[in-house]
């Protein structure tokens, strides 16, 4: 499938901001499930965009802007050709041993309830891949999906307790479950194309990957109860959301307590290609 993505990230300030810094993980790389045809980033203020590769192999951009300015918009736009690989990912940059992906982070720490849940969800299964599918199904069953992007990010155990969350909360819980089962797991941020009535919409999305010996890394999206297919664009990988968040930003000025930062994610269309 050929997908066009247009992602606009705008910040508005109640008072003119003096300066801002942003770190972006918004650029996909090629792998077995996708080929990037064109990609660009544009910042609507005078700045120098610098590109480096982060430790996990993500393409990272950063820039600083000098004020005063009342709004700041970063436009990410591009085109990707995607392929259905049944969720199996290969051809990615892998620098770390699997142990790193067994490590708990504050956002993906498990508690007794999560550990029990993970164990009972896959009790009947022996093979790792089947266990992972079972956990995904059970989690999908348990959690109410909430697509409100402005909702605050919570730790896995809190969201688990509420039985509701954003796709990224589900990814965190899934990672916590997998790691509790001693299966290396990680967080993926990207885009997904969704059929919404007659219209195809592209949304920012998050899911998990877990490691299966013999297959390699396999994607699991518990919010949609499926492994990623050609409607997914894989952008960044991290131990949790903090490591793979599309934008992390800070600024000085812009009003004392009256911060008015919003993340607008406007999407363009997706088209199927026959």
């Amino acid at each position, binding site marked *: 499938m050929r997908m066009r993505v247009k992602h606009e990230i705008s910040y508005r300030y109640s008072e003119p901001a003096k*300066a801002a*810094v*942003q*770190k972006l993980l918004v650029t996909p790389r090629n792998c077995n499930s996708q080929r990037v045809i064109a990609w660009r980033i544009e910042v609507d203020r005078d700045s*120098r965009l*610098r590109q*480096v590769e*982060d*430790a*996990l192999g993500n393409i990272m951009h*950063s820039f*600083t802007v*000098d004020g005063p300015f009342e709004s700041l918009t970063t436009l990410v736009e591009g085109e990707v050709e995607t392929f259905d690989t049944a969720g199996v990912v290969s051809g990615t940059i892998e*620098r*770390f*041993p699997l*142990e*790193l992906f*067994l*490590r*708990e*982070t504050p956002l993906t720490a498990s508690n007794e309830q999560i550990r029990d849940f993970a164990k009972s969800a896959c009790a009947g299964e022996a093979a790792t891949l089947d266990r992972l599918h079972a956990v995904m199904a059970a989690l999908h069953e348990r959690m109410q999906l909430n697509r409100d992007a402005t909702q605050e990010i919570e730790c896995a155990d809190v969201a688990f307790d509420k039985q509701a969350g954003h796709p990224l909360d589900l990814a965190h819980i899934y990672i916590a479950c997998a790691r509790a089962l001693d299966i290396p797991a990680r967080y993926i941020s990207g885009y997904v194309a969704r059929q919404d009535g007659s219209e195809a919409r592209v949304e920012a999305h998050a899911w998990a990957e877990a490691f299966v010996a013999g297959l390699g890394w396999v994607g699991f999206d518990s919010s949609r109860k499926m492994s990623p297919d050609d409607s997914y664009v894989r952008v960044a990988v991290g*131990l949790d959301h*903090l490591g793979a968040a599309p934008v*992390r*930003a*800070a600024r*000085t000025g812009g009003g004392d307590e009256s911060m008015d930062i919003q993340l607008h994610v406007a999407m363009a269309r997706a088209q199927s290609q026959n």
Partner: protein
Amino acid sequence: MEFSRVQFDEMKGTGGLTRPPYQKLSNWLAETPQDFLSSRRAQAELLFRRIGITFAVYGSKEATERLIPFDLLPRILSRTEWSVLEKGLVQRVRALNLFLADLYGPGEILKADVVPSELVYRNPAYRPEMAGRRTPHDVYVQIAGIDIVRTDDENFYVLEDNARTPSGVSYMLENREVMMRLFPDLFAMHQVAPIENYPDRLLATLRSVAPRNANHDPTIVLLTPGQYNSAFYEHSFLADKLGVELVEGRDLFVRDDVVYMRTTEGPRRVDVIYRRIDDDFLDPLVFRPDSALGVAGLMGAYYAGNVTLANAVGAGVADDKATYTYIPDAIRFYLGEEPILKNVPTWRCREKEALSYVLGHLDELVVKEVNGSGGYGMLVGPHATRAQIEEFEKKLTERPDNFIAQPTLALSTCPISVAQGLAPRHVDLRPFVLQGAKDICVVPGGLTRVAMTEKSLVVNSSQGGGTKDTWVVDDAPG
């Protein structure tokens, strides 16, 4: 592992005969009336209060600024004892630096199976962000504080490595100043190795590790979390002695991967940051997003090689209590030498056999949480209640990886001066080691921490421990 249970006193040995380094002090004490010491004690307290040397204690509302108890009697090491310690410390810190450069670089020690790789990669102090990047001059631990204990005339053990932001050096320096004012005669009698050049050495060390693209007179700052931090006094004291600005995160900003500080004359470029903030708080764009203590974009400047952080980000993986048990192996691996300073024998509870031994001997052992610090999260078996032991049994069974256990050593004691005369108290020693781009040095002595209550083994200042001046004196002739 058998340890002598006989109490070793650094002044009286085990037999009650005064040891040579303490001979002059002992004679002096015999001739000095008790009320002289009492009046000096009162003066010392006044001096410390005037200087404003205080220590904030977490969680105690009424005493948020407390004076650390200070004992008048010096702890004395002979030159011979010190030379061994010094060599051992230099060796250890060199190995710590090589270890870190290896962990964030090629990982030879993991490939050789000397250190289990999961211990490193699952450790939260290991920062994947640093993997594959080199720090300026490949130094990770510019300032190390190595905690040392002794059990008898000959044996010194490393209790703990501090490779993140070791504190206490201001007390070492202030203790000496106060002692020299109170007891000029005692100093005249002893040839005490000076420590007052520590700030100079520290400054030279920080200058030497400036990024290669910095100009010949690099701008150095000391980054503090602010005046409510427990060690703020030390931060401002050191900045003053070093003659560098004491900055908070909000005084710094990053533009195009270069760090600047806000001055009344406009932005000024910063080359070296002696940071007294934990990794987690350094840069809200990379680490904790809610941190207001750090500098947004700092890590970008660090990656670009435009600023040196001392100590390096991720250095904590080398001083973790679980990693600690492998440092002697690391010394052999990197330096091909036998470790001069021994570790305290340690059971790694992550290993099955060790765990079952520890569970069977909780009432004899000291159990420590691998990521705990300041004496919190620790069980001292012989002094623990039944309930405390049961609590640790449960913790250990649930998360054995989180713990190590050590025998309760018969730590040496030193006399302290109390109203009734002298009383023995347990002590440890934290010497400070400075690793520059080329040179490495240890200022003679260090900070002696002393448990002020009888029989207590906890010397941490956050739990009521006190300090002493530490003297390295020339050996008595003959």
